[in-house]
């Protein structure tokens, strides 16, 4: 395996996982910009996307299972907002946050209960799971499809926010929650729509993520959720392009760090003679990167332009 192939293989899987983080990150970002709420349950909704698919695909053909999954997850996101967040709209912000943590643990524990904590194999999705060879590197088709799908979805979302009535409502609510209500914006339907969009993207993200890494267990949403949240903060929470760039940066940096020992090692560049065992610290590097960026740019990479907000 040449150095070129090795770096390319790592870059491709980094971009792909980064795109998947980005899809989850958008959900965090949009909700935060309107409600100033970190929706901790979002990562677990993503995990449920994987779990539902395991059960749906066992019963229905894929052309039924995939739309049914998306509808279920969207309905779940909508219900969580109505049940756990809406009654707390006038409560202190901390109460909503605690409610979000409660929902997160409720979902994880229900999943633990119904699966017994056992790992479930995610079904093979024929076209997406197939192996292909790109520029000499073998990977799954999903790795190549993810970045393009993410870009298409983000363009559609930005168009929706800039050109539709609900999009205008979202931008207004993000700028000033109370004033937008005074201006006659139906704030509840705007917020519901935000959760619907976020959950839709999480459902798509779960299909892509679990097709790449086909093990679903109750805590499967915790790490991707945390990293997606980091990506959202990193890119500037509230900014959709920021969330995408943040996700991609984190994805690429973590896969490259895992491969750094080999790239720098005697077989390739020869800069180090002994392995530094950097792979162990790949997650630590992700979070160090976050701290460094926030120290120098507290609003994140794209966070200082309020016009970019949802």
């Amino acid at each position, binding site marked *: *395996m040449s150095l070129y192939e*090795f770096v390319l*293989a*790592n870059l491709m*899987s980094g971009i792909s*996982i980064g795109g998947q983080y980005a899809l989850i990150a958008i959900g965090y970002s949009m909700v935060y910009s309107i409600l100033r709420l970190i929706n901790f349950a979002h990562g677990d909704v993503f995990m449920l996307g994987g779990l539902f698919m395991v059960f749906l695909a066992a019963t229905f053909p894929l052309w039924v299972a995939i739309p049914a999954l998306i509808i279920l997850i969207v309905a779940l996101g909508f*219900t969580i907002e*109505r*049940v*756990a967040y*809406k*009654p707390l709209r006038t409560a202190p912000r901390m109460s909503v946050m605690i409610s979000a943590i409660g929902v997160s643990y*409720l979902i994880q524990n*229900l999943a*633990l*209960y*119904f*699966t*017994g*904590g*056992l*790992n479930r*194999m995610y079904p*093979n999705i024929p076209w997406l799971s197939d*192996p292909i060879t790109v520029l000499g590197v*073998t*990977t*799954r088709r999903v790795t190549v499809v993810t970045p393009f799908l993410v870009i298409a979805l983000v363009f559609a979302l930005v168009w929706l926010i800039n050109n539709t009535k609900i999009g205008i409502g979202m931008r207004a609510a993000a700028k000033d929650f109370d004033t937008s209500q005074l201006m006659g914006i139906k704030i509840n339907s705007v917020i519901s729509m935000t959760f619907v969009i976020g959950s839709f993207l999480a459902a798509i993200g779960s299909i892509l*993520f679990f097709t*790449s*890494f*086909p*093990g679903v*267990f109750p*805590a*499967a949403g*915790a*790490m*991707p959720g945390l990293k997606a949240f980091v990506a959202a903060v990193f890119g500037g929470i509230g900014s959709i392009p920021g969330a995408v760039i943040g996700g991609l940066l984190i994805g690429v940096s*973590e*896969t490259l760090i*895992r*491969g750094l*020992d*080999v790239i720098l*090692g005697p*077989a*390739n560049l020869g800069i180090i003679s002994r*392995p530094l*065992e950097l*792979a*162990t610290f*790949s*997650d630590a590097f992700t979070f160090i990167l976050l701290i460094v960026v926030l120290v120098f740019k507290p609003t994140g990479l794209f966070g200082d332009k309020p016009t970019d907000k949802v």
Partner: protein
Amino acid sequence: MKRFIPIALALILVVGLLASCGAPASQPAPPAQPSPSGDAPAPEGDAPAPEGDMPELVIGLFQPATGANGAGGRQESLGTIFANYRHPYVDIGGVTHRVRVEQVDNQSSTAHGPAAAADLVARGIHFVLGSYGSAVSMASSDVFRDAGLIAMGVSCTNPGVTRGNDHYFRVCFLDPFQGQVLASLAANTLNADTAFILSLLGDDYSQGLSNFFREAFEANGGTVIQENFPEGTSDFTAFMNNARAQGAEVIFAPTSVEAAALIISAADIVGVGIPLLAGDTWDSPQVVDAARGRNVEVMVTTFYQEGGAPEWDADFKAWLNANPTQLANNGGTDIIAGFTAMGYDAYMLALDIFHRAGTLDDREAILQATWDTSFIGPVAGLIEFNEYGDARRNTAFVKMVDYRGVWEFYAEQSL
């Protein structure tokens, strides 16, 4: 009125939660009731007295049904429950006793383990079997000691379980042995010079077994590259690329089953083209499912290879397939895991110990009977204890699974 809907929804959620707690759908099946007629074998010893006034030997089954080790714990429990179904009576001191199995879920957790153990003790058990997972066995060991009970580890392979105490025994082999067997397999059978170890950061089992493997493999003159991954890692493709790029000829991954599926999938997609080795934890139907249809070769060490006792295999499968809950607890297939066989033998050993001790309550007599054990396990063979209370085992079975998705016997490794 508008507030009514969210409140109602919240109530539905809560009621749903409570309802699901009341009817545990995914808990292991309760022990099969011994049926006096039917295919249960005739009781040992005298003809049983009427069920009501017969004295009882209560065996505590200390196993995880949920958490990271839930799958393995359920499989191990199945062996014991099946043994109880086939052999529900034992002769102790000339009196026929009915054997009852009490189960508790220790949730694979060192935090929950001691409380679960105390719960089991409170149910009046006389003997403990378990647990799958060395960490939770060690964490709960003192609870059993303080209650004056003797515990028999079934598949907990960490040396620490039986060290420094006189009440914990075990019927399986240990990690140092398992590490040596796997290293010898890699170096001598697979002719590998370079091994890539992938282990979970901060996990006793994973790090312990990695070290035993590393020592043995390096003593053979091989080179070891070790990388650790943090808990919650999903993307193993980078690790597989590393193994390939550094010229490894074999990958050793002593991890939980959760990581196994992801590692196998990553190995397939990267096309590592070298065998994956693992310890007893990978002896699971989930590993078979993960390997089916994929371009991988997985080898694991295990306690028992299906086909070693064909009649027992057939009886167990018939029993398993007769009950959907039991089948689900075995991962939905009737593949026999090594732990299940050990769970069966451990139960039979317990009966043998009480039969020889001739008492339910005299701890010294029971302890002495345990030390004196020389028992031929019906499935996995002779059990005798060394000075630590570990069964003397010098053979491990190696089995292999590839794209065909069935376990195949690969080798019997001794040292």
